[in-house]
């Protein structure tokens, strides 16, 4: 059983100074502005789906961010269980919260697209169903942290859950390849089945959202570091009273 060390703050490399954070914010803003320009002004309408296909770029980029976030939860959970350092627990929690945010966006934008393309908001298609399950798994992961009182126990339970819960991530990805589905299969083993300008727009959207993920993660990690500092100072204050 690992002993939790009182290491506070994020993983080294994810704690830039104010200047570094401002640079990430500016790059994120510019990339998102470029992506929006490409989506609405550059790419042509899809030959089959028409105008509504333009949801695709941020819908898939949100899914990418969710995948990224839950991969970080998985890796940080393993690191927490092996090293017992608080910073990995903080990283897993912060990333899980952001992952749930982007999965929520996938689950909102998907049905909007579906309503126009399939004429229904929801269908129990394998991709939609496994994505909904993914959302429930990580909402449960966040709720589990409210259940245990002791911080160490809470972090350990969450880490185990973060590792087991990750099983659904590859299932979501491969669901459209393993089962019959009405969900479009765009990225295949032969590459991306789309026109060049659409591929360029998708890549820019992916990069923009990856920066957005890093920006949000750094800010969310700061909250964890500040909460730890508050807890430590409170203990010190109570100690000096006693």
């Amino acid at each position, binding site marked *: 059983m690992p002993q939790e060390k009182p290491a506070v703050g994020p993983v080294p490399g994810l704690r830039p100074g104010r200047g570094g954070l401002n640079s990430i914010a500016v790059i994120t803003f510019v990339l998102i502005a470029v992506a929006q320009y490409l989506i609405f002004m550059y790419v042509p*309408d899809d*030959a*089959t*789906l*028409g*105008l*509504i296909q*333009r*949801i695709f770029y*941020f*819908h898939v980029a*949100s899914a990418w961010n969710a995948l990224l976030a839950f991969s970080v939860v998985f890796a940080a959970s393993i690191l927490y269980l092996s090293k017992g350092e608080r910073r990995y627990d903080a990283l897993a929690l912060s990333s899980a919260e952001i992952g749930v*945010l982007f999965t*929520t*966006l996938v689950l*909102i*934008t998907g049905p*909007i*697209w579906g*309503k*126009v*393309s399939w004429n229904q908001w929801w269908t129990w298609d394998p991709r939609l169903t496994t994505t909904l399950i993914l959302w429930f798994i990580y909402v449960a992961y966040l709720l589990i942290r409210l259940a245990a009182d002791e911080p160490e126990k809470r972090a350990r339970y969450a880490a185990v859950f973060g590792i087991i819960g990750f099983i659904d991530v590859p299932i979501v990805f491969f669901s459209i390849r393993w089962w019959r589905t009405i969900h479009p299969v765009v990225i295949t083993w032969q590459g991306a089945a789309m026109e060049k300008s659409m591929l360029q727009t998708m890549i820019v959207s992916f990069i923009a959202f990856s920066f*957005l993920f890093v920006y*949000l993660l750094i*800010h*969310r990690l*700061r*909250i964890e570091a*500040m*909460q730890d*500092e*508050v807890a430590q*100072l*409170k203990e*010190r*204050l109570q100690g*000096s*009273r006693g």
Partner: protein
Amino acid sequence: MPSAEKALPFLFAAYTIIWVVVFGYTLSIGARQRKLAQDLDLIKRAIEKRAAR
């Protein structure tokens, strides 16, 4: 193919929701950081007062 007239409000709604959710989350992170900064400030002042006595 769905008509552009039919698709446009849905497309608008999707992008509006994305930005409202992301912006809302960013604001909530900022609000939590500000609250914690205030708490830290209060506790640090309390510790300093105690040390000065």
